């Protein structure tokens, strides 16, 4: 059984279970599924700096911080008990492409060739980790949500803004991955 759970879970198992997060949070206490708001609550709690956008009672939203702490613990649980012993099985086309940039370590879900402490202050590492993270935090709040808040919760509730935002997430990602990222990986 444990061996079975250690394999990657196919999309038709994991996807529907992720979808069940939506009713679970609504029924557990009228909470909308969404993660990126947690970053805003952290700002409101730690450094509101009299910015109106952070002037609200973040303590009422503390459930969201418990939720993201749970996500982190979930990652630890997998690393301790359910780790897939095999490398990530990615499409051969991607393997060929990434080979050109010297990326060949598929042991972890996060590529160790790119994301590590030593490369943090190389041009490539700085753009991927620090600039990338900044764009994630800035963009999700500007858009009003991320993949969970817009693409899953918002679409579940048939919200047009969420559909438009999701299309833009994909458009931005497609442009970056195909046109700009190859230049960055060559750095």
């Amino acid at each position: 059984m444990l061996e079975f759970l250690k394999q990657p879970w196919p999309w038709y198992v994991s996807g529907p279970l992720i979808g069940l997060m939506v009713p679970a949070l609504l029924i557990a206490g009228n909470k909308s599924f969404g993660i990126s708001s947690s970053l805003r609550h952290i700002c409101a709690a730690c450094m509101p700096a009299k910015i109106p956008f952070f002037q609200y009672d973040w303590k009422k939203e503390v459930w969201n911080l418990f939720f993201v702490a749970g996500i982190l613990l979930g990652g630890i649980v997998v690393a301790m008990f359910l780790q897939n012993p095999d490398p990530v099985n990615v499409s051969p086309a991607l393997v060929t492409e990434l080979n050109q940039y010297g990326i060949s370590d598929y042991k972890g879900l996060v590529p160790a060739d790119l994301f590590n402490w030593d490369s943090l202050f190389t041009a490539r590492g700085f753009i991927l980790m620090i600039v990338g993270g900044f764009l994630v935090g800035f963009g999700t709040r500007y858009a009003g949500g991320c993949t969970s808040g817009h693409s899953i919760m918002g679409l579940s509730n048939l919200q047009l803004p969420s559909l438009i935002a999701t299309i833009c997430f994909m458009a931005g990602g497609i442009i970056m991955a195909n046109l700009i990222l190859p230049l960055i990986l060559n750095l």
Partner: protein
Amino acid sequence: MNKPENIQEVKHHEFLVTNTDFEVRSLDTICVNESELKHPVWYNLKYLVTGILFGILLVKAEVISWFRIQEMFRFQSFHMYGVIGSAVVVGMISVWLIKKFKIKTIYGEPIEFVSKKLNKGNIYGGLIFGFGWALTGACPGPLFAQIGTGATVIVVTLLSAIAGTWVYGKWRSRLPH
């Protein structure tokens, strides 16, 4: 949005439209709903447990993998589309059922959604997040899960994302919405 019918639903609707803190809170957030109930902090442990389950799902579905995100944006694999697509279908059916049968929370509170209007931020912000998603291979949820799986350097990416959110808040009035 369903028209509130009984007294409890009318009251909850009034709470949602008159609560000014909720108004600030709901800026740049999609479909906010809110509970009127005040509970001790330990009630939040159920969200910690839900979060753990979600974290396990994110890792085992491999959606926290930079490689899987690259495959998705290069149309080299169906996996990510399958995960997100089936999650949306299950979410849609669930929300429809909740509205149709007026399902209440475990505390007996009505569940009502406040719809949001489209603004330019959904487009500009969406594109910016898309760039960041393809670079880091992670949206906000996976950042937390990646740290949990032992990729400690992602703490830096998470701090940078918090900084990005803060800078957005600081510049918000100068950006087109």
